[in-house]
């Protein structure tokens, strides 16, 4: 691909490039050596609840960045804001140095920033091939003034079809290319959506939960496809829940909780971060609540915890005395 060569003047192998991603310490909102996307003070409220409140975020170029966080952390909302599918209350963000705040989503896609959706969006009543062709850019026949004349757009159409054939073969959908996309399985739809977004020849691919609802075997092939994107010189940003997946492929992990970025860093480092463990599992995740002993331990821990209401007047039915009485009653039976 000529695209790749343009972006790779020093012939760096993106797969083995081990230079530091961040400039300085790996803190939330840290500067990157070579950011492709930079966001500042992006906020979005839903009826008084702050869904996204990101002070500073940089996405490193030619890397796979995972955006993780519990449900409701604002990952998808941030995605929608960055890709122009939703309007923030404040904020500025740039893509490759160009200010793209308020730029409509279709223009962003043309600039090379393509996204997929959490709920897979394939055109069920178009064939797989037509879905792919729809993704292609620079087809003059998509203009009304030229649509009537096949001699104008026929040549480009053949190029597009060739490009689509290559991608479909890579994604093992070539046998299905004349079938309606509605006949594909859930996993195949995910593959088709990813393949279609590559038809745009993007620089930054943003995948919203690419692994959701996909069986383990297909997950492996999806992971390989994502790694291949990096090998071909693209930058990937993806949202994911499964920490194991993230550990396998991500070069960089950004953790969100309650709309904010709480941690950033390489996967191994981030997963040891207490803020991350707290956000994902809760502060008291190592207590077994299956037996009375565990519950007593938790009560003691909570009483010592400043932030917990246990040990104050507001504790109500979870006050240590009430819980103790209940446990004794249970044991007496």
């Amino acid at each position, binding site marked *: 691909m000529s695209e790749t060569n343009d972006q790779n003047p020093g012939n760096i192998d993106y797969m083995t490039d081990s230079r530091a991603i961040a400039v300085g310490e790996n803190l939330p909102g840290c500067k990157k050596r070579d950011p492709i996307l930079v966001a500042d003070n992006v906020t979005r409220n839903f009826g008084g609840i702050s869904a996204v409140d990101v002070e500073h975020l940089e996405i490193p170029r030619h890397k796979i960045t995972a955006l993780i966080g519990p449900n409701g952390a604002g990952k998808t909302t941030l995605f929608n804001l960055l890709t122009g599918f939703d309007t923030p209350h404040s904020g500025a963000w740039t893509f490759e140095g160009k200010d793209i705040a308020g730029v409509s989503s279709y223009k962003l896609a043309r600039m090379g920033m393509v996204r997929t959706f959490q709920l897979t969006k394939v055109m069920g*009543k178009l064939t797989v091939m037509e*879905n792919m062709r729809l993704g292609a850019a620079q087809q003059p026949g998509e203009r009304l003034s030229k649509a009537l004349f096949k001699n104008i757009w026929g040549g480009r159409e053949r190029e597009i079809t060739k490009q689509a054939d290559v991608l479909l073969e890579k994604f093992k959908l070539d046998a299905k290319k004349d079938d309606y996309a509605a006949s594909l399985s859930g996993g195949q739809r995910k593959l088709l959506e990813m393949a279609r977004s590559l038809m745009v020849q993007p620089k930054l691919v943003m995948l919203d939960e690419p692994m959701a609802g996909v069986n383990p075997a297909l997950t492996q092939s999806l992971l390989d496809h994502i790694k291949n994107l990096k090998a071909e010189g693209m930058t990937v940003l993806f949202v994911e829940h499964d920490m194991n997946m993230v550990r396998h492929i991500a070069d960089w992990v950004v953790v969100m909780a309650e709309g904010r970025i709480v941690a950033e860093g390489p996967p191994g480092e981030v997963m040891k971060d207490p803020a991350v463990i707290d956000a994902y599992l809760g502060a008291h995740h190592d207590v077994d609540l299956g037996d009375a002993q565990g519950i007593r331990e938790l009560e003691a821990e909570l009483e010592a915890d400043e932030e917990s209401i246990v040990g104050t007047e507001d504790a109500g039915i979870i006050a240590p005395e009430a819980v103790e009485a209940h446990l004794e009653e249970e044991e007496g039976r």
Partner: protein
Amino acid sequence: MDFGNILSLALGEIVTPTTAAYALAALGLAVHFGYSGLLNFGQAGFMAVGAYGFAISTLTFKVPFVVGFLIALLCSVTFGLLLGVPTLRLRADYLAIVTIAAAEIIRYIVTTNTLFRVTGSADGLSSFQREFDSFNPFPAGTYIFGWSNREFYVRIVSWTIVILCAVLVWLLMRSPWGRVLKGIREDENAVRSLGKNVYAYKMQALVIGGILGALAGLLFTLPRGSVQPANYATELTFFLWTVLLLGGMSTVLGPIVGAMIFWVVLSLTQNLLAGLIESGAITFLSIVQAGQLRFILVGLALMLLMIFRPQGVFGNKKELAFA
């Protein structure tokens, strides 16, 4: 009862200019709904805009035929833009609400008594077709099927326009432009994420379907030589939807064949019922009631069609727009 006569009357409906007008207006709806997913419930409004645009500019402003024709098309483009600008960024249902209301607004405006001198109010306008008739190349006489030269002429013109428009729509829909429209019909956000300006495409589709509607309005009024607001009520829009669903939504031939079937069936039921009543076989209906009954039958037929053959006569079940 003369079955031969009933049958020939019914078959004669296949090629009337009214059938052609229905076919063309339904083709416009196919561009709107079948290919782009735009719910237009105001196609009668587009037809009225075309018909009145032509009639008023011819009678009040005394413009030549070609200018009147262009004004009619221009009016429909303006009407389409007016409807599209506020609604096309919203969800599909809003367009439906706005179009049905706008079509009624047009009808009420032309019925207003204050505008009697311009629109003729409820009486409508007439004798604006003289220049159109003067183009008739066929000498007076009787032509095939016993048509007069004018009948022959209007049929030739109507169906030429229908065929031209059908070819145009077919060419557009097989192009990449048509593919983007079909994509928008399925999921506009996905199309947007692939770098297409969805709003512009929807606007183009709305205007093109509207122009077809305005042309249909002309085909509907020119042969009659009169335009009355009562002809452009909401039921016209729903007949057009029946025609579209009958033939198949995402097809070019569907609306045309649908219009033919619609008018043949209407004529057959009307004449059969009338014949049965006259011969005394049916005693519980009057001729007037029979006229109403066939529209009840149209509704029933539409329901049965949606249940048992939702894709219409020509539609592809896999490409069906409801699912």
